[in-house]
């Protein structure tokens, strides 16, 4: 089975202080990993390591396909409209059309609205529209449900199921009870 994302002997930490590890991970097409653990246990650090934004203290990470990362910040420009925000990222990343992405998160009616008028939950949905990009097989989602209502969480679960059905993988760090059938689970902070 072709492994899209793997990590070996991964030790992560901030400013010389070890948070977790060593741990080994491997995700093949259709797989998912749920990362749980208390505040400060290193969930965000693990996702930033997998994304390549941080260097591990030791060990290696191999991402064998394009990836999208959703962090704590939404990377939304308030002076751009909803559609302009999304279109910029799609063009910058060289992925295809964004026509259906706004509809998928229920923002198609607000496409021409400047993003400064969005609520926190709507901004998060716009960030999700950027991240849930079918052109990238690997999705790394850090607390994707922050600020989302129940309908939006259901939408996210459906998008994750479709993505995995099409051979993608997802790593989700969350406190919320988000539906991820047959996902591996990693609980940090048990050492």
């Amino acid at each position, binding site marked *: 089975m072709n492994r899209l994302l793997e990590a070996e002997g991964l030790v992560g930490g901030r400013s010389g202080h070890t948070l977790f590890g060593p741990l080994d991970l491997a995700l093949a097409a259709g797989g998912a990993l749920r990362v749980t653990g208390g505040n400060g246990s290193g969930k965000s650090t693990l996702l930033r390591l997998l*994304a*390549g*934004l*941080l*260097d591990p203290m030791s060990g290696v990470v191999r991402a064998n396909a394009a*990836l*999208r*990362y959703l*962090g*704590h*910040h*939404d*990377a*939304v*420009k308030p*002076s*751009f409209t909803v559609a*302009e925000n999304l279109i*910029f*990222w799609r*063009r*910058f*990343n*060289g992925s295809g059309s964004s026509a259906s992405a706004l509809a998928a998160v229920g923002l198609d009616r607000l496409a021409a609205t400047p993003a400064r008028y969005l609520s926190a939950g709507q901004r998060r949905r716009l960030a999700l529209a*950027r991240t849930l990009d079918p052109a990238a097989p690997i999705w790394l989602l850090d607390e994707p449900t922050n600020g989302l209502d129940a309908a939006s969480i259901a939408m996210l679960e459906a998008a994750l199921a479709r993505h995995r059905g099409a051979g993608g993988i997802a790593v989700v760090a969350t406190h919320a009870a988000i539906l991820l059938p047959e996902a591996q689970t990693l609980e940090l902070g048990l050492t």
Partner: protein
Amino acid sequence: MTAFFVLIRRDLALSARQAADALVAVMFAVLVVVLFPFGIGPEADILSRISAGVVWVAALLAAMLSLDRLFQADHDDGSLEQLALGPLPLWALALAKATAHWLVTGLPLIVASPILAIMLQMPTAGLATLVLAMALGTPCFSLLGAIGAALVLGARRGGVLVAFLILPLAIPVLIFGAAATEAALTAQEAAPHLMLLGACLLASLALAPAAAAAGLRQALG
């Protein structure tokens, strides 16, 4: 390559939405130049003698004014990490951001410089050289400034720090830029100064994106 121009276009579009921010640099340069005759008196001889230096100092300070925001806004709202994960290496990101900064602040300064010089009674013989030297010098300010802007990410009072870090590096550009204009005014050869300015531009073009990338990597970690 596409991503490079997509990023420049986005930064230009963002500046266009905040046109007041974009014009601050030129307005600042105009104000500085307008104030000089009030400070030192209206004698045409004195003004004409100092015109080259004043226009260059005003341009340098105006370029510094907007530099601390070069990466800060993208850093604060999470765009910077998304940009870093995209198809461009960090040095190309820095180069694209510096290019957009130059188009928004440097280009208007070049256009304004002959007008500012005339306000200070500069003889018309020096204007062409002034514009040429500004065209070589202002990109250096944006490129060198990108290093400082990347280094101060996350620091409070970043603007003052950028000035401290970058002004020493910008002094050669200031010296050769003012000297080129001075030479044209005194009927001497301006070419050597312009060539040195060109060398400054090539050196900053080669080195500044890599140095700024190192600063960005530090800020992302």
